[in-house]
């Protein structure tokens, strides 16, 4: 029975420490971030660099789930910063402040074995709204049979922007399969020869999928930098009210420092 008594002692100590812990924790502040899967790679890189430059000052907890989740979480006070990959909407909760941090392109992608070089915007609209259902007759398509339409879940900011920028505000057909993240969308298109989808240029620049040109302009870093490509959108860091404390310092650093600009310009475009 000695054993049981010793255990309960351990519990008591744990209890006291548990209460004491929050007071001690204030030395390093934690910046929590949630939101867009598209800007997740960029924000992770920036956060890593930031921690390296200012060690022991701040810690990051970054999760991804979708732009809308970032908006919800930051509005509810669950995170310090929301990552958002779409422009502010009228429906967004009041009091959110959007800080643009980078620009990115939205590319239509197909499987490597089906290297469609180019589509007109009308064709893109027809495909993604479910009017065109077969690869037969599309110029450059080597796949045959049904088009496997891949879209993103409704929380995706890239989906919202894709619909406003490339589909003239029309909605992607409900036939489409819905992937919960950019990475999974790319993986799906990589593995399915009949598929078509859309991702931010960071994913398509990896070269594992075929990026389809739009109206004769290729979708890659060069055409996005030059501004020729039509589907260019922005990443935002969003805070509830004006950013304060550690979050404000981090956002300020992204906006101003040369180190951050360098990271952004590797794959994305600084503002």
């Amino acid at each position, binding site marked *: *029975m000695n054993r049981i008594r010793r*255990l309960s002692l351990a519990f008591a100590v*744990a209890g006291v*420490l*548990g*209460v*004491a*812990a*929050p007071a*001690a*924790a204030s*030395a*390093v502040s*934690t*910046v*929590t971030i949630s939101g867009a899967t598209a800007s997740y790679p960029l924000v*992770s890189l920036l956060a890593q660099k930031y921690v390296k430059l200012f060690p022991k000052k701040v810690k990051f*907890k970054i*999760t*991804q789930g979708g732009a809308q989740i970032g908006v919800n*979480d*930051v509005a*509810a*006070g*669950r*995170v*310090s910063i929301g990552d958002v990959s779409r422009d502010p909407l009228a429906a967004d909760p009041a009091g959110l402040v959007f800080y643009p941090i980078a620009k990115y392109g939205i590319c239509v992608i197909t499987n490597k074995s089906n290297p469609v070089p180019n589509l007109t915007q009308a064709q893109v609209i027809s495909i993604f709204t479910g009017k065109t259902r077969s690869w037969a007759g599309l110029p450059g398509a080597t796949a045959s049979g049904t088009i496997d339409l891949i879209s993103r879940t409704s929380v995706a900011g890239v989906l919202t922007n894709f619909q406003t920028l490339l589909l003239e505000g029309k909605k992607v057909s409900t036939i489409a399969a819905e992937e919960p*993240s950019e*990475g*999974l969308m790319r*993986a799906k298109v990589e593995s399915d020869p009949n598929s078509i989808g859309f991702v931010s240029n960071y994913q398509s620049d*990896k070269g594992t999928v075929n990026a389809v040109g739009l109206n004769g302009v290729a979708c890659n870093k060069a055409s996005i930098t030059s501004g020729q490509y039509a589907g260019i959108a922005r990443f935002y860091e969003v805070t*509830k009210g004006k950013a*304060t*404390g*550690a*979050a404000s310092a981090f956002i300020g650093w992204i906006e101003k420092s040369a180190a951050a600009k360098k990271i952004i310009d590797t794959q994305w475009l600084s503002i």
Partner: protein
Amino acid sequence: MSTVAPWTPPASGPPMKRGRGRQSSPLSWRWGDRLALGFAWFAGIGLCVIAAAIVGYMGYRGIQYLRPSLLVQRPALSTTQSGSGGFLDPLIGTALLTVIGVLLAVPLAIGGAIWIAEYGRPTWLARVVESSIEMVAGTPDIVIALFGLSIFQLGIFAPFSFKAAGGGVFGKSFIAAGAMMSLIALPPLFTATRDGLQAVPMHMREAAFALGKTRIATIRRVLLPSVRSNIATGVTLGISRIIGDTAIIVLLLGETLRLDSQGSVPGIGLLRGTGSTLTSYVYGNSPAGEGAAPQKAYAAAFVLLLFVLGLNLIVDRIGRSSADATGMTVAGGIV
């Protein structure tokens, strides 16, 4: 049952010898019976083949992809399989959650089992407690996970995770997940202990009372030691439930690949922090998750399967060494 029966009383455990009706050959049977015979062979062998196929396939993939270095490397976020590291953190996470879950479940389950078996008054209350535990047993883990989320996001439970800048409570941590894991481990532990206590012959208690021991002393010095193997079985079953659970991890452990402690107090910070386990690692690295490193998923799943196999063997061992005394049965090992 009956008093005239010369046959061996029905006992659980390995089936006793049965006489087969050798006097008739299946060829002379009715079609329906022959069909049933065939289907019984088909189903029985089929089930064994499926089990063998699963274990064999996982073993093949495991040996193909599992490298000892994976067990000691920390995982990393990467888009390539080679860059994604090993699964040291998930292993630690699984161990940590198991410890928390069992530590929380043991007093609840054993206390409850003793009360039911040794006191159990008023009767209606005992029945309520027993059905509560049955309800916990029947509740899907995903519902328990949602329940945990709603609890640990309450303001007063902020010390168990952390408060975000906006004032919301994160609600996901090892403590939160571990507390809900204890609910998963509770029913098998409770059932095993209760059944053990109920199977202890009455004369053992009477002897202890006759020696002047109080009720609680009898429980502590006589009954609990005699049901040690039942408790061990229960704990083992609870552990195998905990290490196999994914839904609670996905919702309540914060989905960070590495152990990410919260606050600066070592130990407590880890418990308040987030992390991953083998199950969430497998889930995350399957095509359903973000990592998309199926080779790593196979390797981790193989390790997980080895754990489950080991726990099964332990249950078997304990069951066999005390089968006669306690009446542990096939179903006791599963349900």
